[in-house]
């Protein structure tokens, strides 16, 4: 109902290839943007700073991972390590007096450099073996971060992030932090949206589908794999830095451990490979669902009069999270993004379903 294709005729390529060719979509984006911008004034500050803000940052990270996994088709089981490199570089930079913006970009660049190391594995092997080698690299990074005091910040292994100053202005209030996270998320989203319209995006998709076939038609697959890893790591590194500065406020190695990598993968898979809106859904789902389910289970248990131990309550969210991954792979392997698209396609021509292509 909302989306009507009737009466929309594109008369040139520019309108046809616009990011949102349908006016209905454009209106929806504008409304969503307004909602996002006004969120600090309409939502409780608790909701904003504990749910919405991390959701935006994790979405940026998931989008970065989606670039490498969904677009370039290269497995990356060590994305959290990349985020960690960005975060630690930025925090160390900021602590040593480098302006915040430059420190964060440095973090992104450092992550890119290390990300290219991951890419060398991708040049040699693919598929399962790439997954395993990036997973192993994650372990190595974990180890290095936690065992080198110069990086992790000493024995207690917590590195306090200094206060943020954006363009000379101190950013301290929760609302300001929220806008920083929102801004970064929007930048990444716009980049990803435009990617499919660029030669780079098409080359990445060609490499994903069959790298040697891409090579035969003149796409330098090794080069594009490197570019994909570097770009995706840059996004990941900056997302990691922003996560520390706006949310955690202090960096510890566990924030970027192997289970975080898997969580990110789960966001991308549950959201849908290569789907941008899916990354938003996936991040929200993985972040919020286990907690919600836990409250639900605790509530049901209370209703039934059964007492759940503290330990059980602590582990149920993980079980739910594992089960969610399993259920999603069984029910809709293309994820929430695909579900959204199905719904949208249905509404596009509703109630004239037979008019669908």
């Amino acid at each position, binding site marked *: 109902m909302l989306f009507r294709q009737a009466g929309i005729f594109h008369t040139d390529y520019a309108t046809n290839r616009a990011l949102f060719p349908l006016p209905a979509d454009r209106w929806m984006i504008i409304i969503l943007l307004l909602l996002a911008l006004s969120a600090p004034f309409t939502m409780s500050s608790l909701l904003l700073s504990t749910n919405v803000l991390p959701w935006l940052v994790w979405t940026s990270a998931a989008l970065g991972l989606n670039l490498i*996994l969904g677009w370039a088709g290269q497995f990356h089981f060590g994305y959290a390590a990349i985020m960690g490199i960005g975060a630690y570089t930025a925090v160390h930079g900021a602590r040593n007096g480098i302006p915040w913006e430059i420190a964060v970009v440095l973090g992104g660049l450092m992550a890119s450099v290390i990300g290219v190391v991951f890419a060398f594995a991708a040049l*040699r092997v693919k598929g399962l073996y790439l*997954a395993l080698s990036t997973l192993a690299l994650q*372990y190595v990074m974990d*180890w290095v971060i936690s065992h080198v005091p110069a990086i992790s910040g000493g024995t207690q292994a917590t590195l306090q992030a200094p206060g943020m100053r954006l363009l000379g202005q101190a950013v301290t209030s929760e609302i300001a932090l929220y806008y920083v996270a929102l801004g970064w998320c929007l930048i990444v989203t716009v980049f990803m949206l435009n990617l499919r319209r660029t030669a780079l995006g098409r080359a990445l998709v060609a490499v994903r589908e069959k790298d040697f076939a891409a090579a035969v038609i003149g796409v330098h697959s090794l080069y594009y794999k490197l570019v994909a890893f570097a770009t995706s790591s840059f996004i990941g590194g900056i997302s990691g830095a922003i996560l520390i500065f706006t949310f955690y406020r202090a960096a510890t190695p566990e924030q970027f451990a192997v289970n975080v990598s898997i969580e990110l993968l789960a966001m991308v898979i549950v959201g849908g490979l290569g789907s941008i809106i899916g990354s938003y859904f996936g991040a929200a789902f993985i972040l919020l669902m286990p907690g919600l389910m836990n409250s639900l289970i605790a509530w049901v248990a209370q209703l039934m009069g059964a007492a759940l131990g503290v*330990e059980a309550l602590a582990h149920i969210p993980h*079980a739910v999270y*594992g089960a969610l*991954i399993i259920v999603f792979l069984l029910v809709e392997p293309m994820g929430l993004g695909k579900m959204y698209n199905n719904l949208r396609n249905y509404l596009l021509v509703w109630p004239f379903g037979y008019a669908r292509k």
Partner: protein
Amino acid sequence: MDLTLFGELAINGAMTGLMYSLVAMGIVLIYKSSAVPNLAQGAMTMLGGYVVLAIAGGFGAPLWVAIPLALATMFLVGVGIERVALRRLAGRPIIMILMMTLGLDIFVRATSMTIWGGTNRPMQLGISDTPLFLGPLLLNRTYVVGAVVAIALFVLFLLFFRTRMGIVLRAISDDYTASWSVGISVERGVALSWALSSVVATTAGVLWGSVQGVDQSLALLLLKGVAVAVLGGLDSIGGAILAGLLLGIFEGVASGYLDPLVGGGSRDLVIAMTLILTILIRPHGLFGRHDIERI
């Protein structure tokens, strides 16, 4: 260099390595018969340990009764996993299958923790604590038992893969469609491989449980299992044994000399580095088959 220390590190490393092989064999078993890389093998090992303890504790059965019962239970668990989680994924991209096994890993671990809690539970197999003396070298008896079991299982599976059923399983891992076309029940074959692998996981869980008790850390054996499986070649049972030996010795010696330098905890680093180097230098491992991608 102190030769006795080196010898002790090496021989205990070898024994530990063979126990890693037990975990790796489960991974190889599934990969060899359905081309699925099972990243849930660590969790299955842990679950195996817990099931043994649950049967022993719940029904007061002695361990020698509880262990066979647990093996049978885990056999069914393996069948169930295939039926619920993997059957519908046949023919899907490898990333989906990897994610599925990771999801299983998380689910099994968290569910076990929910049911049994996080405290370490001892598993008394009645193997004496006094070390075995081999000349000047000290040997942990449990590791010796583990090594013997690992080698026995290796021989068993070597024979199994020469039987008709074993050949059928290998055929399935080669080509699902071709297997269907000659009347092989692919689903049943995959279920059998998961069941056998779960049985192996239980064996590993019992032995590792008797070494370090049963708790969540058993699931961390996954990294070691994967490293051994890849080093040996993902579809080679013999490779898993030899790679276990090699990796065990290497890890024991390397971490024995590295630990004092970096303040402990270098085992995982050594394992992860071995895994990376194996994949970069020889992805199909020592004895794995070479897959040729057809254009």
